[in-house]
Each structure stands twice: as C-alpha cells, then as structure tokens.
C-alpha cells in the first residue's frame, strides 16, 4: 500500500499531503485541522461528516481522500467565520438550532446544498434535504426554522447566485 502526495482543495486552500489510499476524506480533513467536520459513525448513518464535494453534499467518511483530489471541497467552517458568519450559520445561531452543536456543521452543509439548488424550499423539501443528518438534541423543529429564516434573509439581501 503506497502512500502518495495528494492535493486537496479545501475551503479555497490547497493542501498537499502524503496519504495512504485507505485514508478517508473525513480523516484527511480532520488531520489537516478541519475539525469542524465531525465523526459520528464513520459509515454514512449520521451525516455529521457532511461536506460539499463539487457542490454536492456527501458523507466524507464514505469518500477516500485520493478520490477527492481535483475536487472542490467545502466544509462548514469554509462558509463563514465568527466575524463574518454565513446567513445559515447566523440563522442556526438565532433560532436555537444548535444545542450541543455536534450535528450542526453537517446539517448546515446539507442545508447549503439545498439552498444552492432551491432558494425557496418548502418545509417538506427542507425535511427531505436534511433527512440524512441525525440530530439527537433538537427534534429538528428549530433547524427547519433556521433554514427557512436563512432562505428569507438571503432573499431580502437580494444576494444573487450562490448563497
């Protein structure tokens, strides 16, 4: 099993890292310091590790790091910061949608993928989009509300194109 130098493009930054083939994207990201990508189950059951891969929300535990070379990877931390949060991150904070916060990064990634395709989702469409993200704390109510709030806010600010 030969490790090789892999270039990963994460949140707009290029990383060159030596990786064995059996390293998942989840592990590689966390080892690179992207600890906002969470490990909840490592087999695609919980969605806590979700990232955007070329704009699509995927479980990073089910992608080998080598497979992610040449793609654009976005983690929740790449969407916004404490000083400049993304509307979704702000809405989640305001709506109480983050209780323990562990499912939150993956949840926001799934919501982002939804709003990118569908800026005005119905409640059912929101439910569908986050149906692969388990939350044990909130009962999902405030999460749905947060996504609705974010959709509205983006509409108000008239942000065109990608949210």
């Amino acid at each position, binding site marked *: 099993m030969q490790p090789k130098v892999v270039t990963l493009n994460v949140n707009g930054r290029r990383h060159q890292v030596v990786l064995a083939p059996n390293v998942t994207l989840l592990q590689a990201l966390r080892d690179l310091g992207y600890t906002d990508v969470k490990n909840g189950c490592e087999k695609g059951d*919980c969605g806590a590790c979700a990232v955007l891969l070329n704009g699509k929300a995927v479980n990073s535990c089910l992608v080998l790091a080598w497979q992610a070379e040449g793609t654009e990877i976005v983690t929740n*931390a790449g969407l916004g910061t404490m000083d400049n949060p993304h509307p979704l991150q702000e809405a989640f904070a305001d709506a109480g949608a983050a209780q323990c916060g562990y499912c939150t990064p993956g949840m926001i990634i799934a919501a982002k993928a939804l709003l990118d395709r569908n800026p005005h989702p119905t409640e059912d469409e929101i439910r569908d989009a986050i149906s692969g993200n388990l939350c044990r704390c909130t009962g999902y109510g405030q999460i749905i509300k947060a996504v609705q709030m974010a959709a509205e806010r983006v509409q108000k600010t008239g942000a065109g194109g990608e949210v």
Partner: protein
Amino acid sequence: MKYKAKPLPTVELPELRTVGKSLRRVDALGKTVGATVYAGDFTMPNMLHAKVFRSSKPSARIKQLDVTKARELPGVACVLTADDLPDGKLVTDMPGQTGQKRRKGSDAPVLAADRVRFVGEPIALVAAETQAIAECALELIEIEYELVPGVFDPLEAMKLGAPVVYEPDNIVSTWKIRKGDVEAGFAAADVIVENTFRVPFIDHAYIEPEAGVAWMNDQDVINIRVCTQVVEHFRSIAQAVGVPHNKVHVRGTLIGGGFGGKEDITVEIFLALLAKYTRRPVRLVYTREESILAHSKRHPFIITHRTGVKKNGRITAAEIEMVSDSGAYPYLSPYVLLYATVTSCGPYRVENLKVDSVSVATNNPFTSAFRGFGGAQAAVAYEQQMDEVAKTLGLDPLEVRRVNYLRTGDRNAIGQKIESAVWLEEEATRALEALGEKETVSHDAIKIGQGFATTMQSYGRIMWFHDTSRSWVGIEQDGTVVVRCGAPDLGAGQANSLCQIAAEVLGVSLEDVTFYNSDSAVTPLAGTTTATRQLYMSGNATLKAAKMVRAVLLERAAKHLKEKPEALDLANNKAFVKSDPERSLPLADLAKMCAADGMKLQHLALFTAPFTDKLDPENLKGDLFPDFTFSAHAIEVAVNTETGEIMVLKSIGCHDVGRAINPTAVEGQIQGGSAQGIGYALMEEVRVEEGVIQTPSLSEYLIPTVKDLPTTKAIILESGTGVGPFGAKGIGEPSLTPAAPAVANAVANAIGVRIHDLPLTPEKVLAALDRVRSGEG
C-alpha cells in the same frame, strides 16, 4: 371530545431585561461556524493513540491473557492489563455515590482481571504511535476464555439456582412503599384493572461518541480533556490511578450530547493510566460501535400495575411491582430504581399504595442514567394504566385523571408535600386543545388515534445526597462580566442560562458576559449536569454570586450618586437613579472606582439544596426531591392497519417550567426531549440476545430522522413557583417523560387495543390487530 384550556391562575411575573428573553445563546455562533472544539478535536505534540481491548463473551473466566505480541509490535508504547494497575486493586467506586451498602465485588473493575461479565467489558489498554498501530495491536492480544453460565433475563436471574453475576446474589437493589391499607382500598374498589408493561434497553445515541486526551504536566498533574457530565470524577480517577486527588485535573469540554450516557466515567481512567504510564499525551476516541458497546444503557423495566378504582375513576388502591435489569454492574441502578419507585403511581393522589421494586443483575450490557432516570420508564406504565382504567370504566381519559390529580399542598406517593404549582389539568387541556379534532382520512386502512400523558419528574438531586453548587461571578474593570462555574454544558444551554442570569443582575447585555465552565481545578465545583439540577443549583449559585457583586457596585455607586443603594438600579451597562435615570454612572467607571477603593468585585457563592436524611428502603416515606416539574404531552398518530406503520401527525408538549430563562432554549428542550420520547415509543431498542447486542450501529439502532416526526409544538407555562432562580423549575428530563406514553396512548386509541411493550413496531401493531379480530382483545 373537544377540550378547552383550563384558565390559569393569574401570575405576576416581573418583566426582566435579559432573563426571559430568547437571546442568541453565548455558545451558539461558535457551534454554527464550526469553531467550537469538542473532546475528539484536540491533539497534542508527541501524542499517542489508545484503544481498548474488550471482552467478546458475556460471561466467562479469563483463563489466559497474553499481550506479549501486542507489546512487541513496533510503534506500541504500552499495553496495560489488570496486572499493571496500582496495587493490583482495580476496584473503583463507580460514581453516583451508590449509597446503598456496596456489595462485595460489585463495583466495575477498571480492567477485568479474571472474570468478564458482559460483552464489551474492558480487559486491556493499548497506546501506540498511530491509530492504525493501536488497532493492529488489539488484534495481536491473545485471550482464552472459559465460559461460565450467564443469565440474560432479570426474572430468571431472580430465581433460585440462577447463575450469580457477582456474589452474593443477583439482587442489586430493592425499594418498597407501604402507604395506607391497600387491602381495604381494593375492597372498596368498584373495578380492579391490572396490566404489565415492558420497556427495552435504549442507547443515548448522542452524535458525539466518547472521546478525550490526557497528559501529565510538569507538576505531575494528570490533565484530562474529556466530554463529561461530571468533572468531580477527578476523585475517582485519582483513586483508580493511585495518585492524590489534587493531581488529577479534569478539563471538560462542551459536550456533543450527554443524556446521562456521559454521567459515569467513560474514557477518563483509561486515559489517565496511559498518560501516567507513558508520560506522553494520549488520545482515546470511541467509534460509534464501541460507544454502543461500551457505555451504559437505559434500564429495561417490567412494571405491573394493579389499580382499584371507583366508578367515577377515583383511585382507591394501587399495587405496583417493578423489575429493572441492572446489567453486569450496578452503576446507578439503585437510584434509577428509586426514582421509578417514587413516581410509580404518577402525579395522582393514591392514599393506599404498595410498591415493590427490585433491580437485578444479569450479564446484559450495564445500565445506568438516561434522561428521566427511571421516571421515564415509570411514566410509560402509569400513563398507559390510567388510559386502561378510563377505558374499563367508559370514562374520558382526562376525567379519570382529573379526579385523581395531585394539587399543590398534597403529598405524593412517599408523603412529600408538593409546594409548587401543579398545573396538570391546565397543561393537559392546553395540549389537547392544540391537538384539535382528529384528522380525517380517506384511506380505508388508516386509523387516526389521539392520546396524551401527564407526568411528574423531579428536578434537583435526591436531597439526602446533600447537593451543593458553587459559582463565581466577577466584573472586570471595563465593565465586562465573567462567570466561572464548574457546570458542564451538554448542549441544553446550561452555561448560557448562568450568563443570562448574571447579565440580568448586573445590568449588562449577554454579549458582555464570558463564561468558564467544566474545569475541576479552576472553576468552582458545581456538581453533576444530571438530574435536571443545573439551573436550580448553579443558577441559584450564580444568582447569589451576581447579587453579591451587585451589592458592592450599588454601595459604591450610592456614595458617588449621593443616593441610597435601594434607589439605584443597574441596566444598559450603567448604574442609575431609578427615579431620575439621567443621573447615572457607567459600569466601567464604577468598577474602576470599586477597585481603587479595594472593594471586592468578584464573589464566590455557595448554593445548598435542602439536606435531608436517607429514607428507609423498606418503607419509603419522607422528602426526597427539592421539587417536581409537572408536564403534559399530546399526540395524534395515523396507523396503517394493513402494514402496521405508525406516523406521528401532531405532537404538543405543555410544561410549567416555573420561569423560562431563555424561551427558545426551553422550546428546544421540549422539542428535543419529546423527539427522544417518540423514538422510545416507536423505533428504539438495543436488541440483546444472550448478552450480545444485535443493533451495533446507527443502521440497526434507529433514532428518529427529521422525517419521522412533526415539529413538536411547545406550550410553555410559567407559574414562577419553582425553587430555581426567578422561580424556575427544570425541563431537561421532564420534556421527555410524557412523550412515549402519549404516543402509546394514541396508538391504542387508533387501533382499539393496547400493545404492552415498547417499541411499537409495525409487526407488533399487526399482531395486536389480529388479537382484536380473533376476539382475544
């Protein structure tokens, strides 16, 4: 049946500035932008990776354990077994103050020496340079087991001749209530109704698996970064590792969900041992499968109710038997059983009551704390029993409850007087009114059902534990505020509540408050984040400390503004004259003045719960808890009578929380707690066969996704009568307690027959419908 909300008594709650407002929580943004660091996110230079070698047998003697090959694997720093632990003594007083006499050999060993009692029991620890090497080393550990007959059913385990899990017998704990005269009570009854209910093993399934990092510092202090509900474990950790108490420093993190599963020691002792042995930082993170295997479960219970009632529904006597499965080690079993026993008859006036409860050892996964702590299990039984009583009498289910409800001033099952508001009927009617008329369906196979439950759940710990909490509040010279309090935050907003309280008292905004929590050495010890106690205990401690700071500020401001302190107030970062707000002094300036005068701007306050004496287990009678939260939950379901599938259509939770410090946070707890309750009712079960878990991952152990439940409507009532700060009660556990029985009652209403064991799976629904069709009922 159309229900109208019963009017509430008038309650004058003062309008406050910060408390009572749905402010963005202090920890919210960090979590949503992914900046918050959790226990598994820490790394240290020169760090080792640990793995735990666990028993694959539920009941065996360890004939031979050979770790030589593992030790010799390049990259392995050490492999520890029972032989390597201090003094060869591995017994640790598992936390929770198992106040009942500790039984010989019944404590869980840190590492099994010669005997294993459950699948997953820890046997050896490995620390290696990489995760991969540590995993390889596990494979190289050689073990030979000699199987010993095990027992996997608590009823079997109680029988004479059953295999004994540990000496002297499998009876871990018993509690009895003997109140009034049940014989006479039953004789006076018009009808007697008897039912037995069963609830299964449940997993906490927090999204964050157990994790931590430990290292020894330059003063030989073992530092442990860990997600824990209890930083006071440093004492047990020190004892297990063989160091003085002041040489263990638990640095708790913001936790990714606890629910009682991180209340007992999980990774801490393993980490401490390895850090001490290798003198290097060590990291241990459980996989999901390991988490399900290794940590506690909710106690399965078998609960039998025998209730005597008059035609109008009034209870004349109740006889209740409870059996819980303690699993392989007691942990908190005696206390879970106590909570279940004391709430076994529900929030009702029962003058003639006989309760016998027993917790039994088996070679099943060990059981311990889980949100509700016996109160949830008891409620599944008593609220279904009440509906069965109603059905038998042909009475409306609310009416049967109404004639029995406890009222303020009444005494509960063990004679403790309820002093706070008991708004059961007000809550039930509100929840039912919100439920509205049954949904109409055109599908001939779908039946709609409605059901509700009203429950009581304590907040604050058992008073004979002599619970205390401490909080330190200080104001800086620029007018910003610091709160230091040991209270771990599980995600429910424990820390934020303390900040809102401090902000309220000191007249600053929430953004001006910083908190430090969950540190056993540096933050004042505030006790466990369990038992729905933190708002009550640490909230009151913080309130006290903040008031002490406030008093100093007002004293100095009074001198400056030439007024009496009573004439002044603090708000908007200013001290000002109430009758003439223009006359004011910025808090920053005031703080500097106080400092210049040598006045104390930081105060540590101690809050003490009432201290009582231990109750007699043979005849429970007396005061046990500081207070109770009374709750209602209403559910509407659609049941497909051809497939058995159940869909929850509506969910309403109504709780008197005394005072909501942050209403959005309270709503979040009600929605989240009830989601766990709905999961409990419909889909969650750790299936165990001959001691082996059949649901090892989140593919088999199913918790609700967003598509499995509607958003619960939360109706928050505030009586202001709680013993917490500003009249608050507690909501953490109470939010869950009524949900599962409400679902069960709704399903029974839909299909006309009751299923007596959770979860209510489609198969069980069809089987129940078959019974109806064949006339078995």
